[in-house]
């Protein structure tokens, strides 16, 4: 007759109910059961409280304009289908260095796409760019600061 005689609502359905992802029929069934079953209602409240806790997590921010940081490196990587030949940042570098940087980055990005072993060439490319960072202010403020404490989190 009452809820106690029915099967309890599964975690799957309670969780989907919380997310409003059940179809109408299932929704009605769950709501009917919840109204009469403190045990399932408590479980749902647990899920809801957990969900609410995520809203309390500190709002972490990247902290600077990433578009500015990577702008120079987008130019270094061959764009997908370039229509306009861009002079870009290469004009800022001595000719040989610019070419070397392009090659190094090309290799690095190739390796990254192939997966695995990308870390080393990427760092090599980075070191080429360090003297003249595109979007330098942001790099100084955020990136370099981060580099200072690389590994600080790893115990």
């Amino acid at each position, binding site marked *: 007759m009452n809820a106690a005689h029915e099967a309890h609502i*599964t*975690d*799957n359905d*309670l*969780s*989907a109910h919380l*997310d409003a*992802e059940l179809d109408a029929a299932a929704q009605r069934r769950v709501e009917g059961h919840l109204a009469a079953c403190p045990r399932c209602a*408590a479980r749902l*409240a*647990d*899920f*809801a*409280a*957990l*969900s609410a*806790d*995520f809203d*309390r*997590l*500190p*709002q*972490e*921010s*990247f*902290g600077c304009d*990433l*578009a500015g*940081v*990577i*702008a120079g490196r*987008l*130019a270094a*990587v061959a*764009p*997908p*289908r*370039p*229509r*306009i030949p*861009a002079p870009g940042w290469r004009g800022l570098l001595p000719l040989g260095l610019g070419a070397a940087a392009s090659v190094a980055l090309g290799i690095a*990005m190739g390796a*990254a*796409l192939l*997966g*695995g072993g990308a*870390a080393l060439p*990427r760092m090599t490319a980075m070191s080429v760019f360090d003297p003249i960072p595109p979007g330098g202010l942001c790099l100084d*403020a*955020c*990136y370099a*600061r*981060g*580099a*200072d*404490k690389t*590994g*600080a*989190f*790893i115990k």
Partner: protein
Amino acid sequence: MDDADEELAARAQTGDRQAFALLVRRHQERVFRFVLRMLGSRDEAMDLTQDTFLKAWNALPAWQPEARFATWLFQIARNATLDLLRRRQLVEFVPLDADTPGEAACEPRDGAPLPEERLADRQRIGLLERALAALPAEQREILLLRELEDMSYAEIAATLGIHEGTVKSRLARARAAALAHYRHHAGESPDERRA
């Protein structure tokens, strides 16, 4: 806002860097937040966020206009994150350490003394962070996509490449596991405090 994502991505596909810059500005915080919570390390998360957008730029020719750009971007971020976790064999998640020096610049300022309620919140945040840390990456990521990114089951399914039915069951398992962690560490469940 999301409608224009695909327009911008189409322009970026032709080599339009300004369009891509707009996409970066629009999505950098979401990607960063997700990656940070997956990895637990701010430095790694900053690197990986940059890598994600560089990879996206490079892979743009392969992007299909039918796919939502945000979903595609999260796929890239997520794959890079899992790669890193595997590569470094970072078996243990490193919880965010609020006391780490040098972080203050990017954190919300917080000078005032904490009212009691805030302290309780802090404890609960700590519980959640520890619970997240203890979960397998598979459960952590699905919780983050749902709870932080507010993705629908369909969006999560597309991002993770799984069926919606799997989203439903995996999410429920992840929630149950997180709650079990709360109980284990605090001897209480979230609703008990509210009752």
